[in-house]
């Protein structure tokens, strides 16, 4: 099957590819929103864009960010894990308890990561092997982990004896380590999703699992790996959250799972799978944090926080849906230049049905 290469099919022009890429369609509007909110708030209080507040925003959001990056893998593969929030709390409690009982930091971290990876493995095997809907399964897990965390901590925060400085409070090049962890996780995830075979398997599985399986994509293995990645990152995020306050709080961050999913969706993912990117998630997380911080700076009463959070999410998905609708319909009343009209006597052999072409695109491929 060697190619006696005839012609190469053309790509869409770079400008068009850029316009249609996730980076422009989802990330750019979020960036604009972030900049607009920042400039507005900064106009009222110039501390908003001060380096202290920017660092503070990133610090506040690092735990959520690490969880959301893990969730991005799952959602792109068409899966979901609601149990990451309580798993993170459980991870923090276990880590702190190990220290309280006189264990070493290193083994505490290894133990927690191993437990969380195992949890992810179990979720993945159940979902891939028994075809259990992950929503229900991980909803069960949410309650289970919350209970176990309360049992281990005996319902009260576990002090971690000011340990784990490197995980939560140390500064490297002026930034606290949680920010670095968030950035590193996001960058590594972006590279894995975009440039590796595994990353492409994730998108293929999420886009059409049956077609991918029949082509020969290892869909089961892909799903299991996504659960393992997500749970492991959740456990790590739980340790970071614990290290920041040096306390394993069994009730920490009960909203983290839904906020993480919201951030992933803001970043361009759909829960149907096949879409979503770590870059989009990163920007989505930052937007949520900027909004939160702006509300504080503008002295908006705190009970509005959830309403604004919900409003941002609804607004984003509606705008995305409208964009998709327009893309499906193509241009409604286009202008056609005379040069593309085939003369009636000699029809162009490659004037395809518009269904065969992209409505956005006038350049036809002749073979």
């Amino acid at each position, binding site marked *: 099957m060697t190619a006696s290469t005839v012609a190469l099919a053309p790509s869409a022009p770079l400008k068009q590819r850029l316009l249609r890429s996730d980076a422009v369609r989802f990330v750019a509007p979020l960036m604009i929103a972030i900049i607009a909110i920042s400039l507005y708030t900064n106009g009222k209080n110039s501390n908003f864009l001060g380096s202290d507040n920017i660092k503070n925003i990133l610090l506040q959001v690092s735990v959520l960010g690490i969880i959301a990056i893990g969730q991005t893998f799952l959602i792109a593969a068409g899966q979901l894990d609601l149990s990451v929030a309580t798993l993170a709390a459980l991870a923090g409690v276990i880590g702190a308890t190990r220290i309280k009982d006189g264990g070493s930091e290193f083994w505490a971290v290894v133990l927690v990561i191993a437990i969380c990876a195992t949890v992810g493995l179990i979720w993945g095997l159940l979902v891939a092997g028994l075809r259990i809907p992950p929503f229900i399964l991980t909803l069960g897990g949410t309650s289970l982990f919350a209970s176990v965390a309360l049992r281990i901590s005996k319902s009260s925060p576990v002090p971690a004896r000011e340990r784990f400085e490197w995980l939560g409070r140390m500064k490297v090049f002026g930034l606290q380590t949680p920010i670095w962890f968030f950035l590193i996780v996001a960058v590594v995830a972006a590279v894995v999703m975009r440039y590796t075979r595994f990353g492409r398997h994730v998108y293929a599985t999420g886009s059409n699992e049956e077609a991918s399986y*029949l082509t020969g994509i290892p869909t089961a293995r892909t799903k299991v790996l996504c659960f393992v990645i997500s749970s492991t990152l959740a456990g790590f995020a739980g340790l970071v959250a614990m290290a920041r306050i040096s306390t394993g709080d069994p009730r920490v961050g009960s909203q983290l799972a839904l906020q993480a999913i919201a951030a992933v969706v803001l970043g361009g993912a759909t829960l149907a799978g096949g879409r979503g990117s770590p870059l989009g998630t990163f920007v989505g997380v930052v937007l949520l944090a900027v909004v939160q911080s702006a509300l504080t700076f503008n002295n908006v009463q705190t009970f509005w926080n959830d309403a604004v959070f919900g409003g941002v999410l609804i607004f984003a998905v509606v705008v995305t849906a409208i964009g998709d609708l327009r893309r499906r319909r193509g241009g409604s009343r286009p202008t056609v230049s005379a040069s593309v009209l085939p003369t009636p006597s000699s029809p162009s052999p490659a004037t395809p049905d518009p269904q065969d072409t992209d409505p956005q695109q006038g350049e036809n491929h002749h073979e």
Partner: protein
Amino acid sequence: MSSSAPLTDVTAALELQGITKYFPGVIALQDVSLTVRAGSVHAVCGENGAGKSTLIKIATGAQNADEGVIRIGGEVLDRPNRRQVQARGVRAIFQERQIAPDLSVTENVLLDCLPTRFAKVQWRVAKQSAAERLAALDIDIDINAPVRSLSVAQLQMMEIARAVSFDARVVVMDEPTASLSRHELDPLFAVIDRLRAAGVAILFISHHLEEVFAVADDVTVMRDGMVVGQGPATGFTTASVVQAMFGRPVDTARVHRDVVVDSSKPLLTVTEVCSNRLDHVSISVAAGEIVAVTGGVGAGVSQLAQVAAGGTSPFSGSVQVADSSGVQHKVRGRRHALSLGVAFLPADRKRQGLLLDKSVADNVALGLQAAGTSPVFTPRSVRSAASALVPRANVKAANIDVVVGTLSGGNQQKVMIGRWMGVDSKVLIFDEPTAGIDIASKFEIYAELRRLADAGAAVLICSTDFQEVGQVADRVVVMRSGRIVGEVSGREATEHQLLDLEMSL
């Protein structure tokens, strides 16, 4: 060949006059005029991309023409929407099934008009009315049967019954025979005859010319968005329609051959396989051979393809693939089969074949992505692989970044075939390889399959298209109700002979 009815023709149920439709940079339809008379069947033929789909969309109000006039029963409609067109008695049966599989036959037939009183469904009235509709068309389906248990042909009849209530004036049928096997055509044609006798105008879209000549009173041939031939069906021959469709004669010579293949060392061996649709099926395909498995819908042809490709594991029996040194390996799952060099093209391209929301490039590269071993797979490698494969598979798309879901069915099929052109496969299992593809592309695909076989691949084609298997296969195996009932050599396989084998007991 141009002879349209006078514009004031009182019998004209649907008239399209001078319809032109622009898409950015493309003219989809140019000055298309056609008239469907009451009580007649008007067939529209044309290759993929000739503009048939756009014409249907305009006729049913799903899209509006940029120029031209639509008259329904003499009434001029200006940029009508779907409801306005429907209110004037234009009904459409689309190529894709529109069925709610978990509801009853009654609900499916009356999907858009369940009788209610005070928001409560009147089931007795509903059942009676559904039964009446089916009876009026002489369709034999139990209205209490679960829809999942119906055959494809019965589902189609059910859809026709839904579309055609007593007030239908024009019925548009888009490729109604695409999913039917040969002996299921007669009931469809009988229904069409009944409608015609009742004075309904039928716009019949198909590229199966045999069927066109079996039912049509008038024929319009389209190419590149223009009408290139129009008139009474009696004025056309198959050859003249084909000539008009393609603007050139098409080489329809058989591509099978009579070279004896050493079948003692098969590459693919299916042994005594049983599953819920297969009953002790054994078949083997040697290197260089094209074997076709055929049968009616429900014969288990598609199930055999799934099992042979490792997509479904059988209850009992085994599938084996020989490696280059002749050692047989038992297939354990689809991915294992792929590692042994088995390519698989499933029949249901939307559900089992394509990533509809992804680009042509992503879809074409999926085979490479599954078969490859390197952990790195960059967007750049996807694009360069796709640029080479898309022309080889003859996909007509503006570029490789077009979303696959927006392509026509034939081009989607070619994208799936292109997927396997980049993978070095020893065994190719193609289930309905040319479903929905125009004649010219069909022969290109047959020729490509022959090239692959000549290069040493074992090719297994599962198809319900008797004409196709006769044209492409070296051997034809006929199945019925999950069992093999006969085998003939490709040279001897005529449609009649295969039909006899399939029907005989």
